């Protein structure tokens, strides 16, 4: 689908009026629109994205995102891999939140095979998913600040993200691409230190949350930059298929952890923060940022509850439920999870083989990015960068 849309976008007419040389009247020169290629090598495109912006002075008349610079044929690759072999490729889609992606894929296959999981595995999965959500939001908040010109909060965020990565490293040895959540279980049991590290992280992260709020969120200059910019009304967000903080920023209370509960999310108390237009208009960049800040806090709440309830004396093997042979019966499934970016859906078709016949991914970043032209027309060039930052795309997931 990405490829088809990509082609469509390339054929979209860019509204540039070309005046023939003989028709130019020297005394009545008017200002021309300028086409500015932002990216694929640009500090603020968050990867290899190219935006073709039509500018009138600094005013953005139109913008078209061009994708495909990071296309790695994930979906086609999956058809040649066995079910467990797909998981490392899943990691490489949303490389800022691989745990979320892995959970989505594992859940889809488990649902096809009706696998019952040990409780301990469920707890570890949710714990790591929430840690991953925080890590991902830290990057989103930090880079969003950097797009607005604030460099320091970015490094505070990365300092905290480092703690999360260390927890993951301690558990499975990898820092970025884990291959941790397997179909029917996990690759490793928790390291004995991890729960202590999580407790320390929650304490530290609450302090950072406060610090980032003081330094960035309620900074007058930042509010001026983010409020009333890139307004996405709720109806447009729903029609455009937006999800995650992008949708909730527009005031729509939709979170798959509540609305379509998976794993053991129904056991925990947490709020679903939505945008309220507290600094400007409902659905502006500030609201999306604020939703991420609140979700960071809510994820910390969930982690605290997990740490309380965690079955520490449970010595169950985390690979107890991993099937010897992963070969779902013929059929198809659409399974979705709430990642840090929104609804990540896997549509898997099985033809009773050890390889999936088709894997289709509904990627939240891709859908959210498709709304960029709608919300950035009529703002300034500087706002375009802030709006793009507030969408929080990961090009690995957009292009797949």
């Amino acid at each position: 689908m990405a490829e088809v849309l990509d082609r469509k976008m390339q054929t979209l007419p860019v509204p540039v009026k070309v005046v023939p040389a003989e028709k130019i009247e020297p005394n009545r020169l008017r200002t021309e629109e300028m086409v500015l290629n932002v990216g694929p090598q640009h500090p603020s495109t968050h990867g290899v994205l190219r935006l073709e912006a039509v500018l009138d002075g600094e005013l953005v008349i139109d913008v078209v995102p061009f994708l495909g610079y990071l296309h790695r044929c994930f979906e086609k690759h999956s058809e040649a891999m066995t079910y467990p072999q797909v998981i490392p490729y899943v990691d490489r889609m949303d490389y800022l939140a691989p745990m979320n992606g892995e959970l989505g894929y594992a859940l889809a296959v488990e649902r096809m095979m009706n696998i019952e999981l040990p409780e301990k595995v469920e707890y570890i999965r949710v714990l790591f998913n929430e840690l991953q959500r925080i890590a991902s939001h830290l990057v989103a908040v930090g880079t969003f600040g950097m797009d607005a010109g604030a460099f320091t909060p970015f490094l505070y965020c990365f300092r905290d993200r480092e703690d999360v990565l260390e927890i993951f490293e301690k558990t499975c040895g990898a820092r970025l691409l884990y291959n941790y959540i397997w179909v029917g279980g996990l690759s490793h049991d928790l390291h004995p230190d991890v729960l202590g590290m999580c407790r320390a992280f929650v304490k530290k992260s609450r302090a950072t949350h406060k610090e980032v709020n003081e330094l960035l969120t309620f900074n007058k200059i930042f509010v001026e930059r983010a409020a009333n910019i890139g307004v996405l009304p709720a109806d447009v967000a729903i029609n455009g298929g937006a999800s995650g903080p992008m949708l909730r920023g527009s005031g729509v209370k939709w979170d798959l952890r509540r609305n379509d509960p998976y794993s053991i999310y129904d056991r925990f108390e947490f709020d679903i923060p939505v945008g309220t237009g507290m600094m400007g208009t409902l659905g502006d960049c500030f609201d999306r940022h604020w939703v991420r800040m609140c979700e960071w806090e809510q994820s910390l709440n969930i982690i605290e509850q997990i740490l309380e309830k965690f079955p520490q004396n449970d010595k169950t093997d985390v690979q107890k439920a991993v099937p010897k042979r992963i070969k779902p019966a013929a059929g198809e499934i659409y399974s979705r999870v709430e990642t840090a970016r929104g609804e990540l859906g896997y549509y898997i078709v099985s033809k009773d083989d050890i390889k999936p016949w088709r894997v289709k991914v509904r990627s939240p970043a891709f859908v959210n990015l498709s709304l960029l032209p709608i919300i950035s027309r009529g703002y300034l060039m500087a706002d375009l960068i802030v709006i793009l930052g507030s969408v929080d795309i990961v090009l690995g997931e957009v292009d797949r």
Partner: protein
Amino acid sequence: MFQDLNSFIVDLIGKGDLADILAVVVYAALPLVVILGYALVAILAEMKLSAWLQDRLGPMRTGPWGILQPLADILKLLQKEDTTPTDADKKLFNVAPFIVFIGSYLAFAALPFASIYAGARINTGIFYLIAVSGIVVVGILMAGWGSNNKYALLGSMRSVAQIISYEIPAGLAILSVVMIAGTMDMQTMCKLQQGGIQNWFIFGGPKSLAGFGGNYAWLLTPFMLVSFILYIVASLAETNRVPFDIPEAESELVAGYHTEYSAMKFALFFLAEYANMFAVSAIASVLFFGGWNSPFPGFLDAPWLGVIWFIGKAVTFVLIQIWIRWTLPRLRVDQLMHICWKVMIPFGMATVLVVGTIVTFLAH
């Protein structure tokens, strides 16, 4: 101690043409030495301060505690290939960095480093400084246009609009001081502020200037404070520092007007920025904080120690600029103009009016 550097040279080689030429060369070269030395320190300070603000260590590998990092950076820049884009306007492109640097360098001619040293004794010193800072604008515009790059063009256009706009509040802030001092000569301004911290212009200036036994000087203090804040904010904008670094806004314009520059030409822009930071800070220290004067009469106030006080005060403001840079986000171009024209200029006008009234009717 000699009266000034000129008489020292005359004493050394005797009076004559040779002494004059030598004096000119020394006066012209000394600031360059100061700028280069200062730039090395300032670059390191920026690296280290930003690192500490961000919970990092900063450079630690190059030399003990990373102190050789600026040298290594400059050596790297010297070795880099000097590229010129194919479609660039070569003349403009090549000349621009020099014009920008010259604009910053010219300012050093009028800075009174000490009572015994000021490059050129210009009786309209501060006026001269405002004038030469305009040359930088020409260089930036040439760089942006000559690069034939859209980012560079946008950056230079923004820069020109910004620098020209912010010279007005800066000028108004300077005007308040000039009204109190009754002179535009930087050296005389410093001399007026002799005799301790209470005589600095930030506290209303020398008591001898104010009427009624100097009592009304205190009346000026709040207005001078406003002037000072206006000047500092405007100087941040004139040196393209955060929160006004819109011309080279990294996240939008890659590197603004110096996107296409490499090697030494880039280094010249870099050097000019740091030189500019020092120049505006030095002007602030002369205008409001007594220039080369010691804060307490009789405390380390030998004439040659003035250099230390002067550079110390200027560097303090440079450090404040660095601190601000790594704390605040960046404004948008229309917000920047809004602040300049609708906030700072009215405040500047009001300050000039009040200070003018006080000076006219109560002082002298």
